[in-house]
């Protein structure tokens, strides 16, 4: 590829944390409200988000465009790397390999998840109020649960390990001690975020969302 890749690489690293890292934390918190507050808590959280001003432009500039750049350029970065964990089976080299593998998985997962939820909203097939039931419907399929579990683990690892790499790439953690401490903190972030997402998958499967789903379905059939 021609041209200087210094700025795109720096931008790729920055966008992964700001805004995409902030977005994944927000997403985990919103989903977790389904675990903590059930149907009502989740509806309130969705309502809160949608009552934000200029929400469409925020989605576009804080989520969609950064994801598009980070995802497409990230695939190119993954293509530029050899995986040599067979010869060098060090922890950090495994993290390097997993960063690329989870990046590709996350790219596919996010594309599917975006189609399944945000596009369906835009097409008018689902309303904001029905999102909880919609997720319950999706998780009635065990394969979808498996796919979401893999996708969520990939995305949260990719973010947490990417945050560690961001701190190195921008020259914030320089020495081995700083990098070791930050790697522990980042793996802590991975565990917490992954647990929050997995608990929300578990919550969406509960009867509460199911009855709401069947109520919505019967309402549709009556209507």
């Amino acid at each position, binding site marked *: 590829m021609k*041209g*200087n*890749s*210094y700025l795109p*690489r*720096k931008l790729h690293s920055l966008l992964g944390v700001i805004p995409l890292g902030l977005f994944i934390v927000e997403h985990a918190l919103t989903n977790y409200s389904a675990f903590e507050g059930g149907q009502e808590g989740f509806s309130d959280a969705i309502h809160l988000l949608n009552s934000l001003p200029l929400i469409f432009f925020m989605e576009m500039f804080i989520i969609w465009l950064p994801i598009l750049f980070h995802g497409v350029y990230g695939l190119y*970065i993954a*293509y*530029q*790397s*050899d*995986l*040599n964990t067979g*010869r*060098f089976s*060090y922890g*950090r*080299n495994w*993290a*390097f*390999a997993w*960063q690329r593998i989870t990046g590709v998985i996350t790219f596919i997962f996010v594309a599917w998840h975006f189609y399944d939820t945000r596009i369906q909203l835009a097409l008018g097939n689902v309303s904001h109020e029905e999102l909880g039931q919609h997720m319950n419907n999706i998780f009635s399929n065990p394969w979808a649960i498996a796919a979401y579990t893999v996708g969520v683990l990939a995305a949260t690892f990719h973010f947490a390990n990417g945050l*560690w*790499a961001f701190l*190195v*790439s*921008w*020259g*914030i*953690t*320089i*020495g*081995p001690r700083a*990098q070791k401490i930050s790697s522990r903190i980042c793996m802590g972030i991975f565990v917490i975020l992954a647990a929050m997402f997995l608990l929300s998958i578990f919550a969406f499967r509960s009867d509460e969302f199911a009855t709401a789903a069947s109520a919505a379905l019967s309402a549709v059939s009556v209507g």
Partner: protein
Amino acid sequence: MSEATAAAPTASATGRKVKFIITRRERPDAPSFTEEFEVPYRPNMNVISALMEIQRNPVNAKGQKTAPVCWESNCLEEVCGACSMVINGKPRQACSTLIDKLEQPIRLEPMSTFPIVRDLVINRERMFNALKKVKAWIPIDGTYDLGPGPRMAESKRQWAYELSKCMTCGVCLEACPNVNDRNSFIGPAPISQVRLFNAHPTGEMNAHERLEALMEEGGIEGCGNSQNCVRSCPKGIPLTTSIAAMNKDTTKQLFKQWLGL
């Protein structure tokens, strides 16, 4: 010492052999193949002395006469970097690799990150080009006597000395998953040299030129933080610390450029 020398003839008399599987290639564009060798064991032998034995008696394990295996070496004390090769899967110097410490059969391969010239001989030209690109020297020439330069603090000299041990051997590039045909990454060694020359009180006067060279295409940006380099460096140079420090300095340089400072 005297015991070891006295033991030498008896050891070879026992007929112990050292097995080698060597990846060979006749010309740069020729296909590679492997050839096995059995070399008489001598105490304290290293990979180079085994290769010399093959050169003296170029007969493979099947007893066929073959072309002697080519390799490069100079100093034989791990300071020149010429004899780097992949030994039992890890890139290292053949001179400081002792046969007694290796599992057999011993597999020798060229460091294929670099263009292969013949057998174990590689062309490390890209490393020397990288040193030119980042101006890894200190300009002191003038049209008149410039006088003495500023002094370097002893505490700084001590850590800078560690960086100066780099022998451009290429092991860090061979270990790096981002040094390949699809990636323009300059590699760990020259980045650490920028840190070395920018730490020098006189070299510091041209620090921005070296940082800007790292910010061009084929500079520092390709580092993916696999950190294999620091684990592989035979001289124990803190390469990942150098890379992170240069990440910091190039980031600062970037903001300086944008803000016109």
